């Protein structure tokens, strides 16, 4: 039986892992390769690196981080942030990444997702969706540029469209919850899980282990992404999994 995945997310800029609240107040959380090794030892199921630098120099640094990590840890690595061309994808895969996550570029050029899936396979084509609830409605809108720019696109429809373009997985972040520690946006996540047949990764808002449990059960996510509860040693990945297993969630220990 397929186990539910716990994915620590490392936001990287200038070759360092950082963590902020809704993309502000960045705090240094350490060296990415060392942190990746720590999560590997704790039994993380995958790792996601998110390049939060927009510049092209930043991207070279990111390739280097991926290359060094892939020499030391033997688990699936996803890289997101600034992936805009087929060449960006090839560089990341050649460096040792298994999947890339495409966000803003998918909104501006949906055919890029199709091209990526045809060229490299759906298994490595993750589409990241940043969504915010439309005030007062059970509806969510897709945002780009790190959650700053609204697009007018309905998040549930968009997820289905991205699946039809070849996305092999959806990384769904609630921009309302990101950094708040109030828990995942369960209605949003459930709506997307029900709308697509590819795996959905829940992201944004984890503050307690119970939030992970809700992400898997109430929202039905295949994987839960979390950053700060792991980076600042509030919990280890192993503790999270032991908690989930005790509550009946099928996880790998």
């Amino acid at each position, binding site marked *: *039986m397929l*186990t539910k995945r716990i994915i620590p997310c490392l936001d990287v800029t200038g070759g360092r892992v950082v963590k902020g609240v809704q993309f502000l107040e960045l705090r240094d959380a350490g060296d990415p390769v060392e942190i990746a090794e720590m999560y590997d030892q704790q039994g993380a*199921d995958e790792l996601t690196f998110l390049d939060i630098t927009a510049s092209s120099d930043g991207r070279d640094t990111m390739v280097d981080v991926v290359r060094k990590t892939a020499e030391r840890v*033997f688990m*699936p690595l996803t890289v997101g942030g600034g992936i805009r061309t087929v060449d960006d994808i090839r560089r990341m895969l050649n460096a040792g990444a298994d999947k890339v996550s495409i966000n803003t570029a998918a909104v501006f050029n949906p055919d890029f997702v199709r091209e990526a899936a045809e060229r490299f396979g759906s*298994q490595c084509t993750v589409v990241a969706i940043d969504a915010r609830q439309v005030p007062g409605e059970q509806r969510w809108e897709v945002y780009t540029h790190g959650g700053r720019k609204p697009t007018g696109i309905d998040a549930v429809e968009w997820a289905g469209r991205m699946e039809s373009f070849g996305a092999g997985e959806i990384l769904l972040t609630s921009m309302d919850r990101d950094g708040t520690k109030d828990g995942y946006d369960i209605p949003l996540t459930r709506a997307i899980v029900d709308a697509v*047949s590819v795996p959905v990764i829940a992201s944004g808002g984890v503050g307690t282990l119970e939030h992970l449990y809700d992400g898997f059960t109430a929202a*039905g996510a295949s*994987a839960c992404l979390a950053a700060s509860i792991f980076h600042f040693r509030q919990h280890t990945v192993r503790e999270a999994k032991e908690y989930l297993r005790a509550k009946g969630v099928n996880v790998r220990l």
Partner: protein
Amino acid sequence: MIAIIDYGMGNLRSVQKGFEKVGFAAVVTADPKVVLEAERIVLPGVGAFRDCMRNLETGGFVEPILRVIREGRPFLGICLGLQLLFTESEEFGSHQGLDVIPGRVVRFPDGMSASGEKLPVPHMGWNQLSFHCQSPVFAGIDEGTNVYFVHSYYVRPEDAAVVATTTGYGIEFCSAICKDNLVATQFHPEKSQEKGLQILKNFGAMS
């Protein structure tokens, strides 16, 4: 020396680094002559079956692969490198494979579910191995070991004797085959942490 066949499909660096980590030198090569000279051969691969097969053909790898398998040199297929060994695949129409193992490559059925939740496709993540035969390549790997999968198609060999392991995902599917020195896995040993590295180490020591 281990030769990892580079035909432009996927993350080969992790396979190479995995072998290095467990003490075996491995080269990534796009030269069929290097494949013919290698003691052990690895055929990795991700992407679409049709494109992979086409690249093997244009790269001049088909004959060398068939020859090293026929000669009984240790050969490891990973993911698409397992599927390519089969007679044909139904991915994007019907496409002929290397036909070393009689059988077909088919997609997971639509609408699978378990415990009231639908089962997404691709089958992505960590799932367990159930063993059906002994092979030195799986020495030290226990029943129920979790390994990492990412695929939407699976293999259906005609001869059940080649099935080394099965895994459950809506259906029970063949997750590895072995036949003499030919071994191939649907999962990714190079992404399966220490258990996966153990499999690479076992392969490096196979004779």
